[in-house]
């Protein structure tokens, strides 16, 4: 049998062969039943009948509209399962429903609505977040890929399908023809595949698995059972060897043999394998990736399986041990931990005995895909190297709370719940530091935020654990570029951890080389998640790894990172920010007062106004005004995030307070808001405006705010600086990145 080259099969054009998701039924009596169910939808939901059984892809969009409006009239919210079925069937849900959907379904809704206009495509950037999230609903992924193909957004379809290929094979088959074209363009990895069982299905699974890591794999397969010959022979024209190992293939047991003798044979087989591996590494320059033998799916000696010589587990452990010994002495053999790779599957689903008896296929289809993924990830780790730098956010990532708002004493981190989850996260960072990664703090914060590590008793990390930091209000992508330059490291060796979807998105757009995983929203999930992050896994550990961070620390100097924000503008433009301004009224006055009480950083005067004081300003509209702004963007609703109060006296307006939530700092919301505030003042017949800045320990951020907005300095002392603005003489501040409207 000659080696066969396996490539990705060219498949039929999906766009042509697949029908659009929504099609009409032709059966009138069924139509009538569905119509009746739609009419009685609120009752159906209450009694949990009929609606679950409807295939919504057979129902016309206008009937779905009727369904949704009848639910709305009855004040019944569409339950999540119904929204999901409607969206999977290709229907579009209204905006107010979309707002309550999880991000995967919200994106599906946007794609269902999309008509393929170029400006809609930008929204697909949220797909990157879904591509990095292992927990997204498999059916939704498959549907998203189908929609993207329908819209001809090929690049996005391929990226999403590959990212989830190991768990959503349907997504791969939807995108098959696109994948073939995509894979053609990737750098090649010539892999020789050998095994102690059938390797054909693994050869097929390796193709998308390698593509997901950015490689085109050209596989040649060794002859069946030719494992030892492969290892002992000389490999030519290949970049690496992958070996698929299984227990029966290495050491088949014969229970007629007495226990001791049987175990002796197993030992002998293990030695042969270990020697062959050593021989391979002596002769070949190419790396060898081999899997450990996974846990046996069933014991041979019951409770004694781990200890007795008859035990399969004992045999498996012995062979693995010998293999790891051989690998340790070579720098070209890498053993993949099959138990870790297969841990997403229950033990009984890791094998499919029918496949074993049918074709000597040692692992189930799901298990084979999981192993293919582990081989591909390891290959990538080997070729591109593990990450060198872990760039971490501070607020709500390394501690709970916001340093600049809550103050150091109120940060959550320590021995007790919930601070212990953040402390565990710090522990994980220290673990990676010990393995040679450099830690970098990347935070939009007061410049002295690192001091929290010293001043807060619950913190595990210390400021000098960080090899570098950028703690300022500049865009993080700019900061990370400066740090990469300072450390003389490529951006592709950086991993960036941040709890904010905005920051992750900005980083992915502006620094695509940086690895930006989707950190779980619950701090409790993060420490284990970080340990599973393969790009941080070391291939080899040396004594130098432990001291690398110290070397950098010695070289470190204060780096004032001031960045110009050239391409940050593209990011802001893509955010589609909307600012809705309204006068404070009965329903919003509590929020206005609360903001005055709480906001520390973006706060010009830090005037702690109460509800009564704000209400007084609104009594006479020629004497004062109070405005609020609600901010929304592509990622959702940020609520009321900016506020100001003004007094008018003697033809002069004084901005007595102007403050903004730190969630939306650095996005020009404040410029757009101030511009509208000034216009509102002009509408009251006033053109002379004064603004004060009262410095505090926390509001250094807005020291130059009025200057940047076109105000002129009108005096300053230690307590305050005063600024004036003549409406009509100077251009009003505004932002091209914020769409402003007035609401109630």
């Amino acid at each position, binding site marked *: 049998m000659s080696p066969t080259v396996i490539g990705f099969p060219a498949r039929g054009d999906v766009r042509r062969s697949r029908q659009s998701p929504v099609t009409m039924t032709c059966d009138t009596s069924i139509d009538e039943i569905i119509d009746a169910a739609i009419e009685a939808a609120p009752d159906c939901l209450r009694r949990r009948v009929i609606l679950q059984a409807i295939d919504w892809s057979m129902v016309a969009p206008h009937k779905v509209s009727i369904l949704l409006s009848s639910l709305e009239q009855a004040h019944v919210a569409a339950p999540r399962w119904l929204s999901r079925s409607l969206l999977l069937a290709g229907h579009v849900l209204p905006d107010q429903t979309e707002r309550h959907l999880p991000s995967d379904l919200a994106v599906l809704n946007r794609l269902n609505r999309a008509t393929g206009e170029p400006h809609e495509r930008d929204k697909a950037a949220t797909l990157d977040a879904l591509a990095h999230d292992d927990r997204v609903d498999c059916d939704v992924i498959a549907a998203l890929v189908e929609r993207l193909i329908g819209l001809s957004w090929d690049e996005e379809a391929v990226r999403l399908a590959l990212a989830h290929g190991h768990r959503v094979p349907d997504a791969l088959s939807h995108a098959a023809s696109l994948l073939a074209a995509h894979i053609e363009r990737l750098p090649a990895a010539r892999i020789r595949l050998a095994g102690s069982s059938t390797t054909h299905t693994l050869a097929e699974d390796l193709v998308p698995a390698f593509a997901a890591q950015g490689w085109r794999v050209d596989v040649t397969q060794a002859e069946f059972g030719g494992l030892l010959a492969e290892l002992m022979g000389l490999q030519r024209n290949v970049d690496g060897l992958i070996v698929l190992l299984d227990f029966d293939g290495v050491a088949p047991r014969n229970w007629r043999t007495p226990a001791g003798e049987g175990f002796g044979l197993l030992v002998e087989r293990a030695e042969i394998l270990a020697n062959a591996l050593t021989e391979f590494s002596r002769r070949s320059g190419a790396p060898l990736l081999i899997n450990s033998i996974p846990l046996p799916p069933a014991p041979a000696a019951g409770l004694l399986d781990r200890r007795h010589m008859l035990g399969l587990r004992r045999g498996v452990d012995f062979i693995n041990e010998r293999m790891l010994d051989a690998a340790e002495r070579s720098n070209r053999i890498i053993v993949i931990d099959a138990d870790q790779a297969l841990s997403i599957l229950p033990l009984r689903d890791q094998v499919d005995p029918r496949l074993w008896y*049918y*074709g000597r296929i040692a692992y189930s*289809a799901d298990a084979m895909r999981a192993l293919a993924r582990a081989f591909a990830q390891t290959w990538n780790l080997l070729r591109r190297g593990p990450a060198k730098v872990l760039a971490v956010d501070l607020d709500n990532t390394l501690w709970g709370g916001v340093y600049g708002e809550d103050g150091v004493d109120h940060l959550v981190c320590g021995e007790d719940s919930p601070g212990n989850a953040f402390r565990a996260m710090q522990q994980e960072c220290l673990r990676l530091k010990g393995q040679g990664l450099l830690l970098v703090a990347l935070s939009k914060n007061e410049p002295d935020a690192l001091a929290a590590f010293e001043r807060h008793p619950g913190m595990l990390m210390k400021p000098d654990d960080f090899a570098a930091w950028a703690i300022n209000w500049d865009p993080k992508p700019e900061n990370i570029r400066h740090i990469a330059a300072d450390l003389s490291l490529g951006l592709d060796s950086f991993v960036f951890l941040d709890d904010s979807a905005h920051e992750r998105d900005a980083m992915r757009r502006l620094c695509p080389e940086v690895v930006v995983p989707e950190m779980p929203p619950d701090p409790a999930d993060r420490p284990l998640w970080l340990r599973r992050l393969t790009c941080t896994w070391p291939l080899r550990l040396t004594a130098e790894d432990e001291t690398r961070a110290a070397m950098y620390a010695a070289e470190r100097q204060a780096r004032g990172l001031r960045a110009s924000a050239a391409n940050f503008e593209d990011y802001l433009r893509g955010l589609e920010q909307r600012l809705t301004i309204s006068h404070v009224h009965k329903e919003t006055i509590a929020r206005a007062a609360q903001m005055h009480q709480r906001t520390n950083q973006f706060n010009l005067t830090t005037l702690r106004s109460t509800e009564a004081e704000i209400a007084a300003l609104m009594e006479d509209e020629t004497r004062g005004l109070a405005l609020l702004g609600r901010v929304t963007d592509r990622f959702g609703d940020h609520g009321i995030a900016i506020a100001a109060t003004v007094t008018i006296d003697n033809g002069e307006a004084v901005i007595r307070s102007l403050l903004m939530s730190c969630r939306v700092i650095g996005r020009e919301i404040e410029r757009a808001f101030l511009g509208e505030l000034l216009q509102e003042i002009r509408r009251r017949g006033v053109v002379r405006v004064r603004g004060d800045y009262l410095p505090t320990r926390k509001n250094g951020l807005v020291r130059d705010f009025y200057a940047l907005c076109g105000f002129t300095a009108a005096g300053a002392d230690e307590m305050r600086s005063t600024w004036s603005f003549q409406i009509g003489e100077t251009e009003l501040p505004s932002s091209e990145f914020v769409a402003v409207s007035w609401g109630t």
Partner: protein
Amino acid sequence: MDACKTEIRLAYPEIISIFEDIFQHTGTLTTATTPDDVERWDSLQHIALIRALETTFAIRLSMDEMMEIRSVGDIENMLRRHGA
């Protein structure tokens, strides 16, 4: 409604899209179709076919049934037996 009619020819029209996905087979399918008529229907892809049938119809085939299937008609008989 012509599209409806051609698909009704098989008792389980889902088989058509399965054959399209697994074998890239877009030609005619009847109960008499065998591996000889479908280029990629070899012993290796047979496993993929079995898997697709199992997930689509939520059934599990035995070893024997896996081996017995030698035509589209066999598939339909098997599905009927399983009450799919």
